[in-house]
């Protein structure tokens, strides 16, 4: 090798190290769909707080919580780049697709996490900031780095991170954690297993290829169907908690009862149809309905709180 060819090769490898990632790739790191769910549930947590807070403060809090959730998404994609490349569902993400370097995702995630926690602390209070930092820590260190690759209970325990945003939102407004906000935590916590296991029943091969020990891969589809039904049996009455705690009206109670009943019907169909295309169809219907369940439940709670607020109080 002569000196010129050495320079040329070194030049090429250095040049390849310069990123071609576009702003859209960084946006994808934030997992916008997960982020929208976090915004929605945190917003409901903000609305059920029995205090009048200036809309700018509540909006800034919501933004900080959303960015914190996005930071979790970026750090998750940084750590999971190896297994994301093996699954069809995730192989087009910016890192496995080769559009971004892992280090860029790590730096992006850490910067966003730091500034979102700092902003929430300065704008509202340090309890909310502490809860947000715990949520990010739990999602990355406990779920992503530990549970996800080691136990089929990964999404059960890890679901706590996804269930915390309404608690963070409530704490941002009040400086406190109440039973009302914990009831929203409980609803999301018990909603998570049937939601993800319904998807895992259909995508078991994908998860198996990546070596992720989801319940259908480790304990089998029969046990998964039974556990989906058990968690749905717990979820249906939990959906009524805000009504029994006096946070929501009877209208909400009726809506929550109907949604819980439908969720149970879908879970029973998954339990009964165990093979063939009908089994996959039932699982995907439960997955789809579970999204609708959470959306309508929280929308009705948020909607009636907005009506109360617009009738006299500030947010």
């Amino acid at each position, binding site marked *: 090798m002569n000196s010129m060819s050495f320079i040329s090769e070194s030049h090429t490898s250095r*040049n390849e190290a*310069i*990123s071609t990632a*576009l702003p859209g790739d*960084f946006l994808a790191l934030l997992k916008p769909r997960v982020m929208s769910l976090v915004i929605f549930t945190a917003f409901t947590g903000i609305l059920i707080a029995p205090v009048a807070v200036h809309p700018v*403060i509540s909006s800034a809090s919501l933004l900080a919580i959303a960015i914190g959730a996005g930071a979790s998404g970026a750090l998750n994609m940084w750590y999971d780049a190896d297994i994301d490349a093996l699954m069809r569902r995730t192989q087009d993400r910016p890192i496995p697709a080769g559009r971004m370097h892992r280090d860029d995702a790590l730096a992006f995630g850490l910067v966003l996490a730091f500034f979102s926690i700092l902003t929430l602390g*300065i704008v509202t209070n340090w309890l909310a900031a502490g809860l947000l930092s715990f949520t990010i820590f739990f999602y990355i260190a406990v779920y992503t780095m530990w549970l996800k690759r080691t136990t089929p209970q990964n999404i059960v325990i890890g679901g706590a991170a996804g269930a915390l945003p309404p608690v963070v939102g409530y704490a941002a407004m009040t400086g406190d954690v109440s039973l009302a906000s914990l009831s929203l935590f409980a609803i999301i916590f018990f909603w998570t297993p049937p939601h993800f296991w319904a998807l895992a029943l259909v995508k078991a091969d994908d998860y198996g290829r990546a070596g992720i020990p989801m319940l259908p891969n480790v304990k089998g589809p029969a046990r998964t169907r039974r556990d989906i039904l058990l968690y749905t049996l717990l979820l249906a009455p939990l959906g009524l908690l805000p009504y029994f705690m006096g946070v929501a009206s009877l209208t909400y109670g009726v809506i929550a009862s109907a949604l819980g009943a439908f969720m149970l019907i879908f879970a029973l169909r998954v339990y009964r149809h165990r093979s063939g295309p009908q089994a996959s169809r039932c699982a995907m219907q439960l997955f789809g309905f579970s999204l609708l369940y959470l959306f309508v439940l929280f929308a009705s709670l948020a909607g009636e709180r907005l009506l109360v607020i617009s009738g006299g109080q500030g947010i």
Partner: protein
Amino acid sequence: MPESRREEGLTLTSEQKRARQQRNVAIGLAIGAFVLLFYVVTIVKLGPGVLNRPL
């Protein structure tokens, strides 16, 4: 610049240049939004008290 010196430098491809420019614009907008957010929050939290400081 002599040819040998230019060889040692790093020449970005047009794709890399375009991506870097777009990232720079995005970072600029994000920092601007962050500053604006803190400005508005300060005004809302302190109100007229923002002028109330010992001279």
